[in-house]
């Protein structure tokens, strides 16, 4: 899918009566540059609140904890903070949450009007655990966080919060004094007031000169002396607090300044990760010499790589890692957010006797992080690990886990903007059969609609969609059609009329329906923050509402940042109105809601039986619950192929496992070599979809000569043989929140050599993939982690030792993939037309022995498409090899499912030759298995155990 570029084309080929701003874009596109036009997007300096906040430098915090206001119940501590500069009071809430987390909330004690708190992201109100007071004096308070000698130290003057475990400081808040809270205020800018306040403030200053050092206590002063505050506001007004313009757009800011900021210090930490979406390395960089990382969902046209610019989605979660511990910070705020990262700077002041035993010299590495958001409150979840998997489970307990997709969605997806008509769809479908390449979904982009009216079909090109869907169903294949959240303003369009009549559109600042330009021309944007709107939207996916649809049609939500071609930064005006809130407050949530409502619609249309599949471009914390994401409009360039790895790794770390990049690159046309390499990489990433821009030549897999067709066929088939493993990984992600595609450090947290690796990755914990992402590569150097670990090349079965960098010569057919010694991976070797065709096929088990000659793995089987797994209708078995015996035991004795699949073959890597192999089934029957032993590679293949995959059995090597 395209961003701005697409608009240009449409506008050019449609009519000439377009808004002048589009003409401007036209001109820009003609300039012929490929890179993003950075001028369309704000730098921190151009974003008034970021500039204001960043101008604050580390130092003494003006905030003081008023310990006398402390209230401690069993589960909650509250405490007032006061800003000594303006005497505005804040309310601090502190919770100990189950699973080793601490939640810190800071809001104004008495805000002029309520400040936005993000709803619908947490799956439930998190369960709390008791807090107890350990000690208290005038300098601060020490609280116990329950077990593990964890404490929170609240220092009063200045306010600061330290979380400790034993003698070690895990994290400090406001240690650099960057807590800031722009309180809501009345606008005071009439001329007479200005004069008075200026005079008053002068008088005030004179007065202050002669007054004693001891100032009157806070509240009194606040009431007695509003003039002081007014003076500040007068200054602040100049900084764009009450109005802000960017390019031709102005932001009316009726609520004035409302930014918040807080700093976090991470002693001992040199590696921080997460806060997607950025086209950057896995390990986040320090931002001292440039802009902070920005989180603001934007439709960025032809995005640039390796910089902190905002992209389509935002997950305000950062992971901090050092060899001994992994922690996480979840900053629950949906407004525009900037994150500064620096290392070994200020903030190491050891204060008071409470911190006397803090260890470490000034050389201890430290990373400091600072979050700045435009509005809302500070609501931060500190996930204390200690292991990476603990952090995943902590975060999952807050925002949920990856939705468990239908098995087919884990297969290969064939997309293009656009498959032109039904005939085109049929011929592409036939092409896959002709070239014997499996696929599960064919996709339709915006051109399939009647004039970009979603929920409709072009009556010429897609005259009989149900027939088309049936033809796909006959091959056990599926389709995805796009449904974007911008709705054509057209009184003959049912969807528009209903939304308008129900008052469901987002409003502009003056109260009318907000209108912007997008694919259909003038469009309205439904207010997805409203539950009643979402319910209505979901109902539109019913088969009798969305005409021409069937069970095998799924949905793609694009442009849901939301993209507004003529809006500021190609998105919605911040002063647009969602009921009681401004768009400013909810911006980063919009995309999540769109996907939420769409997925809900798909569930409802099947009566709650079938799993949905919805792809989204925009996302937020919690989006993992609703489907897949992709990295948006990338380009057919080698660097874009490379960056797909860290981009999806970063998403996986913050819960969004179902991630992929457009295979081949969206913009431009890939060289054949790049296309093949991209297929080879994409086949080993969770969401595997080829996509191409409307203006690019066709690139279906068979269009590049028989040799390249064979290369692509081979890798797509590799994907399909591994579907049982992938599916099991998805089930695992759904259960635990662990990433599917994961950085090496997650599995090898104590090996610093893995900390910054982002040209290779793991799928689950058992497959290591180092895709070839260099043009003309003759070889790659892969780091194989783990002392006393061995890795087996999955293609040659060659064994390699761990904890080494291995040079692997490559040809065009090579995809360096290794199976961990000690693992068992199930595959289905009979690759068929689509995943559904393989349902009843038998399994081949690849048992890779470690140095202890043991291995473990799992096998998960269910119907592949319904929610019946929630009703315990599945098979989950543990496969383990030890003492020359491989056995399958039930991991879920309370679950029940029957399968026709059986064990076809067992391949044991690193084996020695047995004299006899005996299979023993649950009923006690014993039989001898034939086997084949390849002495050169130490590979033992057991022929046809034939036992049903859902039963108990074991195989003994003698």
């Amino acid at each position, binding site marked *: 899918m395209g961003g701005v570029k697409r608009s240009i084309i449409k506008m050019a080929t449609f009519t000439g009566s377009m808004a002048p701003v589009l003409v401007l874009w036209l001109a820009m596109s003609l300039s012929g540059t490929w890179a993003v036009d950075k001028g369309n997007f704000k730098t921190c300096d151009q974003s008034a609140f970021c500039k204001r906040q960043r101008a604050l430098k580390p130092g003494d915090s003006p905030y003081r904890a008023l310990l006398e206001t402390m209230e401690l119940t069993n589960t909650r501590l509250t405490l007032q903070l006061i800003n000594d500069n303006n005497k505005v009071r804040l309310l601090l809430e502190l919770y100990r949450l189950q699973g080793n987390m601490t939640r810190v909330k800071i809001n104004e004690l008495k805000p002029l009007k309520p400040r936005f708190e993000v709803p619908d992201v947490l799956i439930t109100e998190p369960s709390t655990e008791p807090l107890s007071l350990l000690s208290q004096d005038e300098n601060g308070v020490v609280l116990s966080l329950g077990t593990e000698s964890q404490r929170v130290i609240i220092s009063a003057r200045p306010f600061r919060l330290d979380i400790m475990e034993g003698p070690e400081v895990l994290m400090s808040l406001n240690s650099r004094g960057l807590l800031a809270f722009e309180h809501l205020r009345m606008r005071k800018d009439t001329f007479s007031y200005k004069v008075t306040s200026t005079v008053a403030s002068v008088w005030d200053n004179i007065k202050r000169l002669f007054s004693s050092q001891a100032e009157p206590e806070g509240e009194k002063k606040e009431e007695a002396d509003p003039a002081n505050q007014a003076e500040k506001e007068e200054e602040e007004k100049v900084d764009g607090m009450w109005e802000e313009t960017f390019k031709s757009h102005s932001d009316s800011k009726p609520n004035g300044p409302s930014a918040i900021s807080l700093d976090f210090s991470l002693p001992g930490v040199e590696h921080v990760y997460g806060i997607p979406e950025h086209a950057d390395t896995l390990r986040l960089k320090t931002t001292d010499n440039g802009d902070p990382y920005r989180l603001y969902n934007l439709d960025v046209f032809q995005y640039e790589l390796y910089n902190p610019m905002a992209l389509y989605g935002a997950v305000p979660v950062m992971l901090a890692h050092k060899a001994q511990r992994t922690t996480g910070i979840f900053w629950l705020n949906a407004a525009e957010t900037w994150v500064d990262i620096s290392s070994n700077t200020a903030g190491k002041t050891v204060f008071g006797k409470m911190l006397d035993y803090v260890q470490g010299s000034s050389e201890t590495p430290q990373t400091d992080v600072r979050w700045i958001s435009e509005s809302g409150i500070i609501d931060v979840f500190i996930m204390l690990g200690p292991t990476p998997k603990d952090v995943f489970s902590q975060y999952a307990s807050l925002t949920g886990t990856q939705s468990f997709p239908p098995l087919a969605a884990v297969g290969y997806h064939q997309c293009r903007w656009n498959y032109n008509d039904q*005939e085109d769809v049929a011929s592409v479908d036939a092409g896959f059969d002709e070239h014997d390449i499996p696929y599960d979904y064919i996709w339709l982009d915006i051109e399939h609609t009647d004039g970009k009216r979603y929920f409709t079909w072009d009556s*010429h090109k897609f005259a009989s969609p149900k027939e088309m869907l049936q033809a796909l169903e*006959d091959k*056990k294949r599926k389709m995805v059609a796009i449904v974007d959240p911008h709705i054509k303003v057209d009184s003959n369009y049912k969807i528009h009329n209903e939304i308008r009549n129900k008052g469901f559109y987002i409003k502009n600042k003056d109260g009318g329906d907000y209108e912007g330009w997008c694919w259909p021309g003038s469009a309205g944007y439904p207010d997805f923050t409203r539950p009643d709107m979402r319910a209505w939207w979901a109902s539109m996916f019913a088969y009798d509402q969305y005409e021409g649809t069937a069970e095998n049609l799924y949905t793609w939500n694009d442009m849901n940042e939301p993209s507004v071609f003529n809006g500021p930064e190609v998105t919605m005006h911040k002063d647009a109105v969602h009921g009681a809130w401004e768009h400013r407050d909810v911006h980063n949530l919009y995309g999540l809601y769109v996907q939420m409502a769409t997925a809900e619609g798909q569930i409802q249309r099947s009566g709650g039986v079938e799993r949905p599949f919805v792809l989204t471009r925009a996302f937020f914390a919690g989006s993992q619950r609703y489907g897949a994401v992709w990295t948006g409009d990338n380009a057919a360039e080698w660097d874009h192929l490379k960056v797909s790895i860290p981009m999806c790794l970063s998403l996986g770390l913050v819960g969004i496992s179902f991630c992929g990049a457009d295979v081949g690159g969206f913009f431009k046309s890939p060289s054949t070599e790049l296309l093949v390499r991209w297929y080879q990489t994409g086949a080993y990433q969770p969401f595997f979809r080829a996509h191409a821009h409307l*203006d*690019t*030549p066709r690139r279906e897999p068979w269009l590049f000569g028989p040799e390249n067709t064979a290369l692509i066929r081979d890798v797509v088939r590799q994907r399909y043989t591994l579907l049982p493993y992938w599916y099991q990984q998805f089930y695992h992600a759904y259960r635990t929140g662990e990433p599917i595609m994961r950085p090496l450090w997650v599995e090898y947290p104590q090996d610093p050599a893995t900390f910054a690796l982002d040209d290779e990755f793991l799928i689950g914990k058992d497959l290591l993939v180092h895709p070839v992402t260099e043009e003309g590569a003759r070889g790659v150097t892969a780091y194989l982690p783990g002392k006393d670990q061995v890795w087996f090349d999955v293609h040659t079965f060659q064994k390699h030792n761990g904890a080494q960098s291995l040079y692997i010569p490559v040809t065009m057919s090579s995809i360096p993939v290794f199976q961990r010694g000690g693992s068992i991976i199930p595959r289905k070797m009979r690759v*068929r037309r689509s995943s559904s065709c393989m349902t009843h096929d038998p399994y081949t088990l690849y048992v890779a022995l470690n140095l202890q000659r043991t291995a473990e793995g799992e096998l998960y089987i269910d119907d592949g498409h319904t929610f019946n797994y929630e009703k315990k209708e599945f098979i989950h078995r543990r496969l383990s090899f030890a003492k020359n015996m491989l056995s399958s035991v039930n991991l879920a004795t309370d679950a029940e499912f029957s399968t026709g699949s059986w064990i076809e073959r067992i391949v044991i890597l690193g084996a020695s030759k047995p004299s006899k192999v005996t299979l023993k089934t649950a009923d006690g029957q014993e039989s001898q298995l034939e086997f084949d032993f390849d002495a050169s590679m130490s590979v033992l293949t057991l*022929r*046809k155990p034939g036992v049903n995959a859902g039963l108990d059995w074991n195989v003994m090597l003698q």
Partner: protein
Amino acid sequence: MHFHMIIVAVFWFGFVDSRKIRGISSSYKRFFRERKSFLCIDGSKIIPFEQVNDDYCDCEDGSDEPGTSACPQGRFYCTNLGFRPHYIPSSRVNDGICDCCDASDEYNSHAHCQNACWNLGQRERAYVEGQMRTLDEGLQLKQQLIEEGVLLWREKQAQLRELQQVAEDLQTKLEERRSRKQEADRLKEQTPRPPEAGDGRLFRGQNSTVTGTFKLLDSNKDGSITVDEVQAKVALVHDEERVLSEDEAVIKDTHGAPGVGEDPPLKVADREWEATNLKKVEEAYDTVNMEISDLREKLAIDYGPDWEFLFLNSQCYKLKVYEYTYTLCPFNQVTQQSTAGTEVSLGRWGMWEGPPKNQYGRMVYENGEPCWQGGSRSTTVTLTCGTETALRSVKEPSKCQYIMDFQTPVACQPVLKQRGIHSEL
């Protein structure tokens, strides 16, 4: 006796075994006649015969599992009685999708396949018959078109020769005119005298001969000669020898009159006449030459071994697809016109680009209107056999790359006739 019985038994079992091997054609039966063991067809391995079609792949080449989905390289033979037999990849055996029309591939699946071979066979036979009729008719039409093409080709060649003749004549005239003009200019410099009436008359007469040629060519009387006009009249000019010779005679007479060139000096008006005449002859000459090169260019195009595609040269074919009308003018250009009326070039004649076996199966038109993302529009036209000449479909699979299906009798190939239904009964 006992011995004989064993032989019979072996033979019988062997026969039965090969009969029940699923997924092989009769020509492969000989590989499956073993009783105890089976040799993989590639010779790589011997396996017990009971492991043939036991749903486990033993042979590298997949030959031991012709009837199951076990081997990745395997293939399954659909006998398809009543229709065409064919192979499908093993991966399509028991996958729940009916691939063989005789339903033989789904012997152990949930799919309920009906034997549809007879119906398919019927349909195919009807289709093939239709195709044959089309082909027969098409080939007859093609023969006519070939004959017409040959005639047309000769005509064009003749036309070219005639044009060349005119050009030669005009060149001669041109040279004469040029020398006359030079003479006039030279005389003017020597004796600048006012013109005399008598001389004027003479030149008007002279002029009238040139004008005559001009008028002859300038059929629409707009005062200038167009390529089309020359093309239309050249034959006339040359056929009517009398007119031509009269003209030539007049020109010769004028030129040849001894006194004219030497004695009575030219006046200003004469010089002007002379200049005008020269210009007109030059124009005529250029026009004819342009026409010659144009015709040469056209004749340089490959119209097939029998000039059978020549008749398409001056034709255009239209097809409306949704909001666009497409026009294919073979050997010239392809255009697209929107309902709003704007016309876009989808390419100008490029070349034949058919596969080696069917060189004239595809034409390419290139360098049409430029595209947004660089490059220019182009169109590939596939020619298929039909009884009429018409544009059948237009598609734009990728932006700016159009493909057309163009039906015409001249695309009919006799080789097609050999197609038919082979059925192993």
